[in-house]
Every structure is written in structure tokens, then in C-alpha cells.
């Protein structure tokens, strides 16, 4: 792997070389969103209001998918879900 350039070597107007998609922020969270697909009506309010863009709609399965790699566990989705299909839980509570 080539060595990353330092700030002295890059051009005057710095050019960011990597996409932040490579920087996973998922380990910031304490609580995890648990999604109940039976209650979900696919209104996509969660996907719209997520600050991280961690909630995606998959038209092929007709369901909402959560990306744990980026979710910071803020709980906006659980708070705004009109049918309460999302609850925030500690990861160990899962089982």
C-alpha cells in the first residue's frame, strides 16, 4: 500500500482523497434500533429523518434496511416512527 501524503505534500487547496463511507461510525452507539417488519408500513419517515443516511429502502424486498455500520444510535427513527415499529435496545438485550 502506498503511503498517505502528509499535509506538506498535498496541493495548496487540499483535496480530500477518501470517501467518508470508509469511516464507520457505527461503534459510537449504545442503543441499537430494533425494527419490527410486521408493524412497519414503509412510510419511510425514518429514512428521511436519519442524520446518518443509515436507513435504506430496498424496493426489491419492499422493506427498510438499517445499516449498523453507520447508525450512531441517536434514536430519532424510534421517536418519529408513526406506528412505533422501531425500539431502541442495548445490543445484549437482543436475545
Amino acid at each position, binding site marked *: 500500500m502506498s503511503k498517505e501524503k502528509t499535509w506538506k505534500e498535498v496541493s495548496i487547496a487540499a483535496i*480530500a482523497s477518501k470517501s*467518508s463511507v470508509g*469511516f*464507520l461510525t457505527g461503534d459510537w452507539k449504545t442503543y441499537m434500533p430494533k425494527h419490527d417488519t410486521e408493524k412497519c408500513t414503509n412510510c419511510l419517515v425514518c429514512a428521511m429523518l436519519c*442524520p446518518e443516511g443509515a436507513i435504506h*429502502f430496498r*424496493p426489491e424486498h419492499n422493506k427498510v434496511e438499517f445499516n449498523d455500520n453507520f447508525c450512531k444510535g441517536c*434514536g430519532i427513527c424510534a*421517536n418519529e416512527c408513526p406506528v412505533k415499529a422501531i425500539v431502541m435496545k442495548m445490543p445484549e438485550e437482543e436475545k
Partner: protein
Amino acid sequence: MSTQEWKFTAKDIAAKPDLFLSGHRACAGCGPATVLRLIMKATRGPTIVTQATGCMEIVGSIYPYTSWALPWLHTAFETAAANASGIEAALKIMRKKGKIKDEHVDVIALAGDGGTYDIGLQALSGAVERGHDFLFVLYDNEGYMNTGIQRSSSTPIGASTTTSPAGSVIPGKLEKKKPITDIMLAHGMEYVATATPYYWKDLLSKVRKGLEVDGPAFLHVFSPCPRGWRSEPAKTMEYSKLAVESCVFPLWEAVNGNRQLSTPSKVIALAPQKKKSLKDYLEGQGRFRHLFTPQNNHIVDEIQQATDERWQKLLRQCQTSQP
């Protein structure tokens, strides 16, 4: 402005790839991060974004990472609008000389409330006066949050910040919030609007309208900040909804100076019993906690009265400016 209105559904928007990418380092529950994601979903073609220093500039561009999937230019705190005018002028001349393809490129300038209300106001005023074709988006989190929650001229009266701390001497900030949209309207702009992320459809259509305008457009987006407001991260969007419902931040748009209430606020104007009390909005925000003590209770009433007066004034303005 095109006569055809942009129609979209939640699924269309969800299917559109993000241009403000995941992996940015905003706090959990960041309001402005949602705002930026949504704004970028409303772009219509080639777009260049220029951003003044502020929270969202920092979190999206920590070297060597970038959260922007489109040309993005960082600039000094005061020059978001000056930069946007430069970009627009450069595009014009390069197109004329045949150096770039002959197609329209949208320019969006992004700045926080510090970069708009205080530091960037003269650059913005100048750029608007010169009539450059760009959309200026102000994401207003009511303070200088990334440097440690200092007051700005956008911080509302009564809010406690690190430079207006509530205590035995003062009950939070003593001065009112500056009416930035009135200032921008006074420039005679073709399009000025206010929006919040909770009403995302309203926000997206306003961004698109702002881009379609042939000239400068200004969009004021209310973006709660859980860190600076000392509120729960999960309630960020709830506060952006309560601000509209309690008429602290009414939603309206002004095309050629004609102010019209947008649907969420029009509902309250038509059915005043739906208006929530200011207390619902202030409660739960740590920056207003000191107002709920016996010696400061009168301040809540004063703010409520001022809010009501502002709302009535807006209603009058919207009525008189009906076409």
C-alpha cells in the same frame, strides 16, 4: 422560475443516492446533518457546493475523508456567498469561452447561523445585490456550536450559552433573535423561504424552487442541535416540529416578496386551537431550564407574548401580500 412543479414521493427520494455521505462525524442526533442530506436530495443536475466554516463543514471534511459526493469547496467563515458568486461568475465566463460544456450548473452556498447572521452577512448582502444565481442555505442551530456553544445573533432570548450563561446576574441571553429573513426580503430577492427538516417534503420542494429561481435565493432552515441545546438526541426532529407548532418558527415562502404561509403553518393559522404553547417547546431543552424556576417564570410569559405578536404580524403580512 419554471411553471411545472416538482413532484416526488418518499420512495423516489429514498431511491436517490445520498450526496452527503454516511460516515460524517456529526454528533448522534444532529439536526443539520439531516438537513444537508435532504437538501442534496433535491438537486436537479450538476451542482457545486461551497460551504463556510461551521459544524457541518468540519464533520464532513476531516482529512483525508470527505462526505461530499459532488464538487465541494470550503471557504473562510465570512465568504460563503462571496465564494458562490465567484463560482457562478467563473462558470459563466468558462461557458462563454467554450472551456466547459454548455449546461446549467447550480451553485449552493451553505453556512450556519454564525456564517450568515454575524460573520457572513456583508458578503451575502453584496452577492444578493449583484444578483448572482445561487441558492444560499442557512442551517440555523442558534449558536456557535462547534467552538463550544457561544451565543450568536441567532440565539433566542433567554437561552443559556457559554457566553450568555444563566445565573444570578443574567437569565440567559438578553437580546432578541435577529430577523434574518426580513433582512433578506428587504433586498428584494425573488425567493426567500423558511423550512424545517421534520416537514421534509416542504423542505425539499423549497430547495428545488430556490434552485429554479434565476437569481439569488435564500432558504432559512431551522436545525435543532442536541449538543448545544442540551436536549435529547432522539428528540431533535420533535423540536423542529414543535417550533413550527408553537409558532416560534413559522414556515412560509415569499416569491417576489409575496409572503405565503406553507401548509404546516397554514393549518395552525386556520385552526388556532392547534397552536401549541411555548412551554411545550422550551421544556426539555437544557438551555431554557433556568426559565422554569419561580424567579424566572415571568420570562416565559414575556417570550410567549413576543412569539404571539410575531405570529400575528406574520399573519397580517401574509394576508396583505396575497396576490
